[in-house]
């Protein structure tokens, strides 16, 4: 029988596109014959902002890239700037940075699990995820005064030291979280319907994943043993004991499992940090901005220095919760970066999606899309 393909426009306003993504689907009944992705509805010109603001002023804008997990964005940019200017960071500051980033990784994966399950129709998981996320966000609020847009990591250190009562709360969170992950696994992992929906859906092989530029947990789900924290250890990751989680299948379920395991690993890292965090300064006084809590007499020692890194360019990358987050920063020796380029993990991971979903059905598109775990603020910048 001769049939006509249906052009279905999914998004930019659609419940499961996680924002303003648009799929142009060519459907044969329920089967996807062609998938085109249209992005850019949330483009805010962050890279142009980077050229227009000073090095310090651009940090708040990086918060707005991946707003689910903003701390790695802060850190990735600051790391690039530090490499460019050759700034030393006190050890305690490094510990705090890793602490907040791993906490953010847990938050990100909780949100991802929740939204994946919500996309598949199970609406309870997201609330459980958000419940634990709330505890973590309150910790961030104690730490830096904001819940999602932190502006916390600064060149040469961090903005403020850990507040009183942070460590007990962290320990409580770790203990609580361990129990809760078991809960999630019981609720989701073995659920036959969940398995039916995610097993063998959106399969991508290791070679293809690499060629399509996938990174992070999405790629490790395909069996590439690659974690920037392991391969190019930055900050204090070389001192920490953790493993890069990996699954071989390359389907949606594998990508999901990688993230559950990563939450465990992150908890493990948090526990190590809670045990071994050293005392000391949290900021390199020469470059950093100390919190302005001193008496007015000590004005000058707290005054922020203006950066003028030497001419040069740097590409520095970290393992953000969603994948490889890189910042290319070029300096021309003035107070503002000459060029800031953001290599966002969501953007590059999305390239592989049309490949994954060809020949599958709309519900599979949503399952595959949910496990790639993108944030539109990160895609469109």
């Amino acid at each position, binding site marked *: 029988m001769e049939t006509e393909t249906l052009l279905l*426009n999914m998004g930019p306003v659609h419940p499961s596109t996680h924002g303003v993504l648009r799929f142009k689907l060519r459907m044969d009944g329920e089967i996807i014959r062609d998938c085109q992705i249209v*992005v*850019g509805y949330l483009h805010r010109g962050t890279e142009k902002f980077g050229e227009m603001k000073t090095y310090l002023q651009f940090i708040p804008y990086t918060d707005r890239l991946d707003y689910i997990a903003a701390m790695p964005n802060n850190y990735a940019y600051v790391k690039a700037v530090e*490499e460019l200017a050759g700034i030393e960071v006190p050890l305690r500051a490094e510990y705090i940075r890793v602490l907040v980033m791993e906490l953010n990784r847990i938050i990100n994966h909780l949100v991802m699990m929740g939204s994946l399950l919500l996309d598949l129709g199970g609406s309870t998981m997201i609330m459980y995820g958000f419940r634990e996320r709330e505890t973590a966000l309150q910790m961030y609020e104690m730490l830096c005064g904001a819940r999602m847009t932190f502006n916390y990591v600064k060149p040469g250190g961090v903005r403020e030291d850990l507040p009183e009562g942070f460590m007990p709360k962290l320990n409580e969170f770790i203990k609580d979280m361990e129990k809760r992950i078991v809960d999630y696994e019981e609720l989701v992992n073995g659920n036959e319907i969940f398995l039916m929906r995610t097993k063998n859906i959106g399969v991508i092989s290791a070679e293809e994943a*690499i*060629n399509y*530029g996938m990174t992070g947990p999405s790629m490790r789900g395909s069996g590439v043993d690659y974690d920037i924290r392991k391969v190019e250890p930055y900050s204090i990751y070389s001192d920490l004991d953790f493993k890069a989680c990996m699954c071989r299948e390359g389907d949606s379920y594998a990508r999901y499992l990688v993230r559950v395991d990563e939450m465990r690993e992150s908890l493990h890292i948090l526990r190590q940090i809670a045990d071994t965090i050293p005392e000391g300064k949290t900021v390199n006084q020469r470059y950093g901005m100390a919190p302005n809590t001193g008496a007015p007499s000590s004005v000058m020692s707290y005054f922020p220095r203006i950066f003028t890194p030497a001419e040069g360019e740097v*590409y520095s990358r970290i393992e953000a919760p969603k994948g490889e987050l890189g910042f*290319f920063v070029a300096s021309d020796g003035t107070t503002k970066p000459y060029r800031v380029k953001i290599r966002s993990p969501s*953007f590059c991971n999305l390239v592989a999606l049309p490949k994954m979903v060809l020949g599958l059905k709309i519900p599979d598109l949503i399952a595959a899309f949910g496990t790639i775990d993108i944030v539109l603020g990160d895609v469109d910048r």
Partner: protein
Amino acid sequence: MNPAEELKYALPNSVISVGVQTNKPLAVIRKEDLLKVAEKVKEMGFDNLSVITGVDRFDRIEVIYNLFSYKKKQNLALKVILDHSSPEVDSVTSIWKVADWLERETYDLVGVKFNGHPDLKRILLPEGWIGHPLRKDYDMSTEQFVTIGEDGEDIVSTDGSNLLRRK
């Protein structure tokens, strides 16, 4: 011997100079030979194209390819230098699939034309946008208004005439 020098050794005519990008080896490539170099580099094990960056340097436009090898765990940066007036370079989409979107983005924001790209059109900005924002000579003072037309296409104007509620 770092990968950039290796590359220089393998393709002496294509590599103009070898340097560093802060802590990563950098090779400056003749723009005509980019495709050849890319194939060679892929052979050398650089299977991951991290990012393509276009930088407007007033008199020239640089396009920087940051590569990573999963096998050797090595970094390499390639740089091509293009004319400012008509920046054109070969597309590497055939070698790294991820270059598809990265090149479109560079085309969109910096205005580098990639020859041989299967679908070179704007990605982040709407079709019909005037200028390339990350060029240093981009006119920031002109406002542009975007609406979506009947068939989902983007309509751009500078005077707001396409807006439903006129400005």
